[in-house]
């Protein structure tokens, strides 16, 4: 089973990809074998004073995803994602969730080696 999570402004494949990771509205989790989707609300992380990226990592790690597609990831979230073995495709802002998944399946999303945002942004 191969599941990926995409930061999303809403619950469906046709919602806009949320450029933020830690403070994303939620995550669309896609099972790439069946294309079944599941939505994880991230409201709890959005209201945290600090550590939103770490909490968001805990949320998607529990859902069993192996890859994250998003816009920007900060350094602490990147460390947490790397530690749990979730690969990160970033700089995907401006796409819909579906477009991001298609780009990923076409092999056009490079996996990031480092964070692309400062902490707390």
């Amino acid at each position, binding site marked *: 089973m191969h599941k990926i999570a995409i930061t999303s402004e809403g619950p469906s494949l046709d919602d806009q990809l949320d450029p933020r990771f830690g403070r994303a509205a939620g995550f669309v989790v896609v099972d790439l074998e069946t294309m079944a989707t599941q939505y994880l609300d991230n409201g709890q992380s959005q209201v945290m004073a600090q550590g939103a990226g770490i909490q968001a990592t*805990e949320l998607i790690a529990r859902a069993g995803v192996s890859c994250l597609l998003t816009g920007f990831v900060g350094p602490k979230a990147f460390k947490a994602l790397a530690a749990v073995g979730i690969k990160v495709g970033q700089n995907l802002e401006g796409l819909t969730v579906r477009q991001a998944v298609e780009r990923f399946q076409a092999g056009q999303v490079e996996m990031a080696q480092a964070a692309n945002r400062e902490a707390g942004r």
Partner: protein
Amino acid sequence: MIIAVASGKGGTGKTTVTASLATVWDGPVLAVDLDVEEPNLHLFLQPTIEGSAPAQLTVPVVDEARCTYCGACADLCQFKAISVMGQLLLTFPEMCHGCGGCLAVCPEQAISPGQRELGEISWGKTGGGGFLSGRLRLGEAMSPPLMRQVKARLNQMLAAGGDAIIDAPPGVSCPAVNAVIDSDVILLVTEPTPFGFHDFRLAWEAFASLGKPMGTVVNRAGLGHEAIYRFCEEKGLPILAEIPYDRVIAEAYARGRIVAEVSAELQETFVSLLSQVRDLAEPGCPGQAAHA
């Protein structure tokens, strides 16, 4: 007596007032720079530094050999400084507020105290009194833990008697509240501009609930925005001193001089401020102004 010199807006003259008050003080006085993110009181008082010490915060160090990944520490931590995901434990020492909760709650005694450097505390003497200052480490995000350690030393230094004047950081959030919360009197330094008034009101709202005597010092008086005067009258906040908007003062400040030493009139302004601060701190004394 501890006097905190605060403001809402930055650059209104907290350090000017602190340095001048310390210079005209009529007894033993300790000048304290609690604006640890950008301390500058030393530029004016030019103290002789007699000692310094690093300030540390206790952060968790986990012995993974003993950890059972029960998650008790992560559940307790409100700051995500420690996270447990499956058979994986991560610590983020830079997020830690140093409460020690994770050490207390771990059932396996797998967590031991480590340290994060917060900055440096230094102390010494000025011409007329003592000097104490904190300086936050570059890259450190939290100033209240360092400020608490500076205040602990302040209390030690005051144990022998005397008064302290605290140069507080600007703003009205945790650092500013931390700087004024243990004081006996709060002086709010402001300037008669729309921006000055806006932040002055925020400061009043933040500090009024502490129930301490408060007074206002208007710096750059004569700039023309009168709302501060009306507000102070409404709230019963006494205006203890006015420092005129004057190029001579700006020039002296730019040279690192103490404003109370610029002229006899300015000296008199701060001597008068000193006696009014004493009146404000000691209820029942004649001349005490009403405060909310």
